[in-house]
């Protein structure tokens, strides 16, 4: 192992402290008995218990989950099909460059621009149909739109990694299109599809901007709720809620790590 300069070690520890100090602060104040202010008044779990009596928070949690699950399922299906379509057919290079550019748009433009364009587009679609009132449906559409790109990119890199030999072997053994897809492609692609779906799910849970622009009064999600609460003035309940969300994130990250590393 290479010897490390003490300065590198020192900077690294300081950087990590810089990343975690604010989060630790939230966790500490979530178990502080003081109703307001930053003075330590003893240990308590009551703010956590109160979360489960707060209908708004429960509804926001439900909306968050619903939004993430529905959008992830749709985006994973559409993204996977799109990846196969883009990678496994003899497109002319102009066509495939064009498709590639469209696929990269959500990755390389600031999400606030996507959000703004969706607001305007939904505004015009509303003239045609009232389903496009700000609300959960709009949020789901918005999330799917950026998730598709990420799923397709992840699945496509898996397609490239698989190569063509297995497929050729299956064809040589007279596999039909359907058999090839079900028994050869999908099993081989599964790790990529799952990785793409997990990425899409986390992106949806993490998103604030798209939701903020497309949400209606009835479709609060947890990030929106916290944002609104902070502007009104933070309460210990918000600390407790945030700490819980952070814990869920930690569990998800560790699980994902385990899952992808053992593959």
């Amino acid at each position: 192992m290479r010897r490390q300069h003490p300065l590198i070690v020192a900077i690294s520890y300081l950087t990590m402290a810089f990343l975690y100090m604010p989060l630790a602060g939230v966790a500490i104040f979530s178990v502080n008995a003081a109703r307001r202010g930053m003075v330590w008044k003893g240990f308590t779990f009551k703010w956590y218990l109160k979360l489960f009596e707060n209908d708004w928070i429960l509804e926001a949690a439900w909306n968050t989950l619903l939004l993430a699950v529905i959008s992830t399922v749709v985006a994973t299906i559409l993204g996977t099909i799109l990846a196969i379509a883009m990678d496994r057919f003899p497109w002319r290079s102009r066509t495939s460059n064009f498709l590639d550019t469209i696929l990269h748009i959500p990755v390389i433009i600031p999400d606030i621009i996507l959000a703004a364009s969706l607001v305007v587009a939904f505004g015009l679609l509303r003239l045609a149909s009232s389903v496009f009132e700000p609300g959960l449906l709009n949020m789901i559409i918005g999330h799917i739109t950026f998730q598709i790109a990420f799923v397709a990119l992840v699945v496509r890199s898996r397609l490239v990694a698989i190569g063509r030999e297995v497929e050729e072997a299956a064809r040589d053994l007279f596999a039909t299109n359907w058999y090839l897809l079900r028994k050869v492609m999908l099993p081989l692609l599964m790790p990529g599809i799952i990785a793409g779906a997990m990425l899409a799910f986390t992106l949806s849970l993490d998103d604030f901007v798209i939701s903020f622009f497309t949400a209606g009064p009835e479709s609060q999600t947890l990030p929106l709720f916290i944002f609104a609460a902070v502007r009104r003035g933070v309460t210990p309940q918000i600390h407790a809620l945030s700490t819980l969300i952070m814990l869920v994130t930690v569990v998800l990250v560790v699980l994902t790590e385990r899952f992808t590393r053992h593959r």
Partner: protein
Amino acid sequence: MKRADSVITWYGELTTRQQLLKRGALLLTPGMFWLMLFLVLPGLVLVVVSVVTRGAYGQLEWTFTLENYKRLAGYTLFGWTPDYLMILWRSVVVAFFTTLVSVILSYPLCFFIAGRPERSRYMWLTLVIIPFWTNMVIRAYAWFLILSPELPFARLAAMFGFIPDGAPLYPNAFAVYLGMVSMFLPFVTLPLYASVERLDWALVEAAQDLYASRFRTFTQAILPQTMPGLSVGVILTFVPAMGMFVVPDLLGGAKYMLVGNLIQQQFGTSRDWPFGAAISMGLMVLTMIGLQIYRRKGKEIEVI
């Protein structure tokens, strides 16, 4: 016989090009239809809306005008003001320095992690991944909490006379930078680490054997090798940093507005979609210019 109809083998299948393309188009349709309808079309609509007029109640009036862009450039009824241009410029500066500081902090951190023994290396890496996936609203408001007047940081700043006694350490530029850097640091660290982990140390040693200074060793032996990871990190940071509005909203206040806040304002309280669309175009152009400059400097870039 036409080339399109000739029989080819494709992935072991005996077929014609035409048949393949027909099947491919069928598979392409659902995903591309969605992206056209909800990504490309709304984008074009946004361009159109940026040149129409806002009605008295915030509705769109289809008279075409360049008024919104003129307003963004600072021309008002009462003469020229640099207000909006200042906000755009500030966003570029903030995004640039956020990226720069994140890169400067990421290099030592990556080398530190890469130098850990195998077991603890994954722990350290996980410790960087966790903030990466933690919701940014929570991470922004965590700073809001840490900088509040009763806690040591604000007290210390008050002691040195930077802020009045009993005031929080926000809203100001300093708080925005703290929030931005902590928000985007993992976005640089993670892709950069992928490159640092694969670093060929023989080249670094060769540079040292030839008496290269520390600086030259870095620029000639380390930087070129870590360029792929660095490029991804820089793009992942610079682009969203340009459009960021949560951090400046919570930690910057009205005095330190960024273009993200300005856009949000037009679609929120002001209800001025055409102007909001024009600002979005401005942001888009700035982002593209930033990426172009970087692309020219950094030669080859692979996104994802």
